[in-house]
């Protein structure tokens, strides 16, 4: 008796130490601090890269400003004004201090400060990507679960084919076809752009720009007619992007769920007599959520930067469209400004998914 008791002691001392150390808040705070540090390093790297690109591309920003018919003196003056005559490290420091103050320079295309352009365009992209991700999660996760539970039977096959279609259809094609049918033929939804032309005036008059997002601002201002119209316009692009996100999320959910359903704790739950629905949606999905968070964050980030095609097809005045137009016009400031904003959005999403991780997975705390 005493032998087994003695043998057990070291193990339980360790256990108690482990249990005692569950100071949740300090641990999350420590993690947060570390993440914050890596965030700054990443941000610095991002700025370094964008700066390098700006100096490496065979485009002369000074020439772009003064035009091809300027005299040598005018050109030199422009160069001096833009700081391009300074040594490269000095230029980088200047760039950094400008960016920190939110100054990305002026866009040649719109003649406005890039930061103002981005401030207008980003909410439109954010609105689209957020609603599309929401659609992708709300439909994709259940679809993936149902697929996994019915592995190899018809619901699985149907859902996988639907997902594969979303994966393989080019977004711009799907967008055009959807416009043709639901806007052109049936007239169920609004066409390209964020609002009907007839609503643009009332948007200007009735809606206060709290956030820059038409849906949120019009709801906050109580302009429900504008809200409803904006909704009919955003429906199609959200559907097209959301379909893509749904396909990806359901596929990943399916494979994570298959992995979890084969685990012993799932059998243990069944042994206890837990109803199958709870076994699947609480036990297995609770564990599948851990890797799923990363997948959802990645897909969200991809929509933030990658909705260029959708924005073009739907004439959606978002960041993707802005950067593409700037790229074609060799508007370097605008391209870099947009790139930095997307980079920052990426970093913030990463931070958020890291934080969510600690909420869902006790082992990550």
């Amino acid at each position, binding site marked *: 008796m005493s032998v087994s008791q003695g043998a057990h002691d070291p193990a339980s001392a360790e256990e108690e130490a482990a249990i005692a150390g569950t100071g949740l808040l300090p641990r999350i705070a420590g993690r947060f601090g570390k993440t914050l540090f890596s965030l700054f390093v990443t941000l610095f790297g991002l700025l370094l890269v964008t700066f390098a690109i700006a100096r490496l591309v065979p485009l002369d920003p000074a020439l772009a400003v003064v035009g091809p018919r300027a005299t040598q003196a005018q050109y030199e003056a422009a160069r001096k004004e833009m700081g391009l005559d300074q040594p490269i490290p000095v230029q980088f420091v200047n760039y950094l201090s400008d960016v920190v103050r939110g100054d990305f320079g002026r866009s040649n295309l719109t003649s406005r400060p890039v930061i103002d352009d981005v401030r207008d365009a980003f909410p439109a992209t954010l609105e689209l990507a957020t609603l599309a991700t929401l659609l992708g999660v709300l439909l994709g996760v259940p679809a993936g679960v149902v697929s996994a539970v019915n592995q190899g039977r018809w619901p699985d096959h149907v859902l996988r084919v639907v997902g594969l279609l979303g994966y393989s259809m080019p977004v711009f094609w799907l967008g055009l076809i959807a416009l043709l049918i639901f806007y052109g033929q049936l007239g169920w939804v609004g066409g390209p752009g964020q609002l009907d032309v007839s609503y643009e005036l009332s948007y200007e008059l009735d809606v206060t720009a709290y956030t820059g997002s038409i849906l949120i601002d019009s709801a906050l201002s109580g302009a429900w007619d504008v809200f409803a119209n904006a909704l009919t316009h955003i429906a199609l692009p959200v559907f097209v992007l959301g379909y893509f996100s749904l396909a990806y999320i359901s596929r990943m959910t399916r494979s994570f769920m298959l992995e979890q359903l084969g685990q012993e704790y799932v059998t243990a739950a069944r042994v206890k*007599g837990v109803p199958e629905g709870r076994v699947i949606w609480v036990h297995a999905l609770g564990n599948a959520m851990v890797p799923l968070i990363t997948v959802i964050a990645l897909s969200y980030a991809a929509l933030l930067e990658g909705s260029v095609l959708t924005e073009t097809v739907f004439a959606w005045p978002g960041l993707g469209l802005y950067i593409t137009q700037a790229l074609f016009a060799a508007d370097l400031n605008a391209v870099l400004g947009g790139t930095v904003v997307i980079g920052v959005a990426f970093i913030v999403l990463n931070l958020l998914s890291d934080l969510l991780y600690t909420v869902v997975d006790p082992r990550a705390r």
Partner: protein
Amino acid sequence: MTDEPLLEVENLRVRFETSRGVTEAVRGVSFQVGRERVGIVGESGSGKSMTGRSILRLIRPPGVATADRLMFSGIDLQALSERRMRAMRGRRIAMVMQDPKYSLNPVMRIGSQLVEALKVHERISKSKARERALQMLADVQIRDPERVLSAYPHELSGGMGQRVMIAMMLIPSPDLLIADEPTSALDVTVQLEVLRILDGLVKDRGMGLIFISHDLRLVSTFCDRVLVMYLGKIVEEIDASRLQDAEHPYTRGLLECLPAIGGSHEPLKVLKRDEAWA
């Protein structure tokens, strides 16, 4: 009372039908269990775990379990609807599994998992359920039940985890417990203690126990009766106390390939296997 067996199994078979053909994991097994401790011994792949799981009707496709008779205290388990069967699981028949690292849900607190085992079978208030969970943890000799209740599985050691597993399976007071290699994943030093706790609880509560293991010596010191399985069949059934008189060459082989302290220094015998036995 003890005359009528708790569990009667007749001609139990478990088949796996895959695209590459049919594999029979259990091939016609019959036995009875009363309120006693029965050991099932065999090497890996002998079908002992599948036998345990088919009693709970937890063989998942593509596996199929059939039996001529599968009676549990007068109830035909095979005839039950899935709903009625679920009411049997946990409440009347429970199972302790091998490794608490995998058999406890890693993202759920120990307390929630214990209370869940109770709540699926009885309407019980939160505080009552919590009280029962604390009592149960104390019964498996966990020293600080309050703290363990709010801990997550990864915060426990193997021995502690397995005691939690036993507590979780015994909390609705089942009549029959299947212990499927309950100590194989534990350190040798902790094994005996966990076994002692399990044995004490089974005795106190007068439950039936099916103890599945590959360790013949362990089973023989711990059980009343031993079934030796080989290739999906029971090759010998013998009282644990009479194990030294075992007649079947496979059982003898299992006994002879164990080293004995102070025994002869000859090389151990190699276990003989013959497909004809099965």
